[in-house]
């Protein structure tokens, strides 16, 4: 980031906007392309997405480098407005409108370098059709400078005011731009997958940035369904999108019938947001050395919230067991270590490790017993699942060697019926696994003191959120 500021001060104004990209060593970046706009300026997202893909890639790669250099989580880049200085410059290169065709007071020493930049964004939202062509050729209207100081001062103040406003607008806009750019690259990847799977893509899908889907109920539903069928396979944008979507739907006031998988994903995203909030409260409570009674309230609220997710999961398992088993509602890294639709009950205590010390002898024994029993139960369920799979293999691979055609069909149907009943037990296994997880959590809570339990919940939650962050970083890693 600092390199951009350095670039800003060292270069002449007309090279200001794209010098940063030269610094990055992107040799194929063509400034002419950046400023080339055939039609009138349209700052809606369609123009953004109509850019040549090379431009998009340039920013994409550089932004991700920044993510690594500055240690910002890729997910945070989407959600926060910080770190957008470079993309702000990128925005200008798409042909930002300039009001009135000239920048006034450009040479005025009273303006800082930054305000030079923001001055160009003063009329971003106006309908003026003036455009920036082939390099930031900025004309200074000499005649106006020669009028009185008063006018100059007034204009300066107006400029500052406008600059301030436009800076805020720019921030919000760039934020939306970033999120939709990332979504675009993700959706492009998912498009292939979706086409293979034959998912219907709603035609009402606008190329809009952000989530302002308006229109009548049917349009909304189609758009939602179309977007969501893609987004189900793209987690990066996933959580915040689904959270906003659930808000949007609830504010819409009408009942929207959604596929069970989508409904669970939305509820889970909502749950996760709420969980983060409760965990943050707990963390600040622990750090501010609250008394045991107040801390206990915070711990109880987190535990009660965990009860909620297990209720959600039991509904989800009954509605769509394979979706729960697939773990598509989790991030890739979480999915990798998943067991029967969730975390391993034996893993909970392994994660906690030494964080629980000091423990009394009784507590230590309790923890050891819990570790052992959760491991045994987990192994039992795993072996049951193996038996299930073996039974399914036996059923589906049995050869029907009846000579007559009708015999074949009858055998086939009977085998299928057996296989169906085997699959039905899958729901039961998922249900038992969730019960196991829930009970392990509750037993851990019973053994520990309030303070220990608070620490344990924080450690466990941090582990999971870091795993999610790892997924984000992994997906955003620069590829050759």
């Amino acid at each position, binding site marked *: 980031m600092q390199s951009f500021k350095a670039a800003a001060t060292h270069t002449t104004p007309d090279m200001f906007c794209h010098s940063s990209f030269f610094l990055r060593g992107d040799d194929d970046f063509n400034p002419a392309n950046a400023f080339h706009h055939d039609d009138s300026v349209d700052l809606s997202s369609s123009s953004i997405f109509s850019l040549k893909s090379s431009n998009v890639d340039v920013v994409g790669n550089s932004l991700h480098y920044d993510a690594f250099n500055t240690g910002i989580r890729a997910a945070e880049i989407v959600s926060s407005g910080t770190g957008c200085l470079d993309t702000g410059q990128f925005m200008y290169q798409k042909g930002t409108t300039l009001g009135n065709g000239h920048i006034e007071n450009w040479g005025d020493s009273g303006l800082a370098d930054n305000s030079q930049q923001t001055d160009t964004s003063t009329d971003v939202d106006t309908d003026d059709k003036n455009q920036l062509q082939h390099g930031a050729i900025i004309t200074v209207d000499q005649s106006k400078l020669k009028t009185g100081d008063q006018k100059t001062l007034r204009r300066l103040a107006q400029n500052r005011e406008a600059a301030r406003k436009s800076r805020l607008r720019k921030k919000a806009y760039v934020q939306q731009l970033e999120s939709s750019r990332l979504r675009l690259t993700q959706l492009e990847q998912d498009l292939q997958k979706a086409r293979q799977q034959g998912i219907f893509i709603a035609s009402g899908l606008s190329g809009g940035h952000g989530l302002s889907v308006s229109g009548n109920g049917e349009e909304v539903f189609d758009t939602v369904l179309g977007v969501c069928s893609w987004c189900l396979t793209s987690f990066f944008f996933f959580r915040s999108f689904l959270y906003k979507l659930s808000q949007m739907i609830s504010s819409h006031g009408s009942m929207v019938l959604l596929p069970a998988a989508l409904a669970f994903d939305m509820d889970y995203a909502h749950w996760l947001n709420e969980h983060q909030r409760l965990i943050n409260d707990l963390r600040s409570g622990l750090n501010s050395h609250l008394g045991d009674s107040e801390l206990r309230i915070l711990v109880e609220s987190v535990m009660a919230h965990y009860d909620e997710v297990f209720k959600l999961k039991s509904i989800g398992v009954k509605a769509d067991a394979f979706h729960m088993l697939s773990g598509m509602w989790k991030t890739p890294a979480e999915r990798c270590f998943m067991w029967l639709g969730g975390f391993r009950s034996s893993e909970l205590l392994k994660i906690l490790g030494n964080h629980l010390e000091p423990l009394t002898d009784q507590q230590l024994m*309790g923890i050891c*017993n*819990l570790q052992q*029993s*959760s491991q*045994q*139960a987990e*192994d*039992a*369920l795993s*072996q*049951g*699942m193996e*038996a*299930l799979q073996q*039974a399914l293999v036996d059923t589906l691979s049995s050869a029907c060697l009846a000579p007559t055609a009708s015999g074949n069909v009858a055998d086939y149907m009977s085998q299928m019926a057996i296989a169906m009943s*085997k699959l039905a*037990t899958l729901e*039961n*296994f998922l*249900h*038992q696994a969730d*019960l*196991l997880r829930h*009970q*392990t959590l*509750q*037993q851990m809570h*019973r053994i520990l003191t309030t303070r220990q339990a608070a620490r344990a919940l924080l450690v466990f939650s941090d582990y999971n959120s870091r795993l999610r962050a790892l997924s984000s970083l992994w997906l955003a890693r620069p590829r050759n």
Partner: protein
Amino acid sequence: MHCQTGSWGSYVPTTRTTVGDPLERIERLASENAVVIFSISSCCMCHAIKRLFCGMGVNPTVYELDQDPRGKDMEKALMRLLGSSPAVPVVFIGGKLVGTMDRVMASHINGTLVPLLKQAGALWL
């Protein structure tokens, strides 16, 4: 610890008993051994519960209801007893009903299963 399918504890073959109440039969069978499991040979959840006890070092007595001529009646009786389907697997320890898979797992996690087993004499330190 060897735990092979088909040689679970002692399988008691049915003798020429009179037409008795299936529930009575269940209770009689349950009280004959420390740990008794009623199961169905093709049921995978039953397999899981057998594995659980085996992993703890317990040698349960297993009655496969699909291999028993009066298994159907017993299954129905168990369903009435438990108030839900499926009827199997169901575990009796020391002649007393513990329950089906979720109850057994819950009691194992909260630490009440092992003392119960020790009390019934199915588990030694």
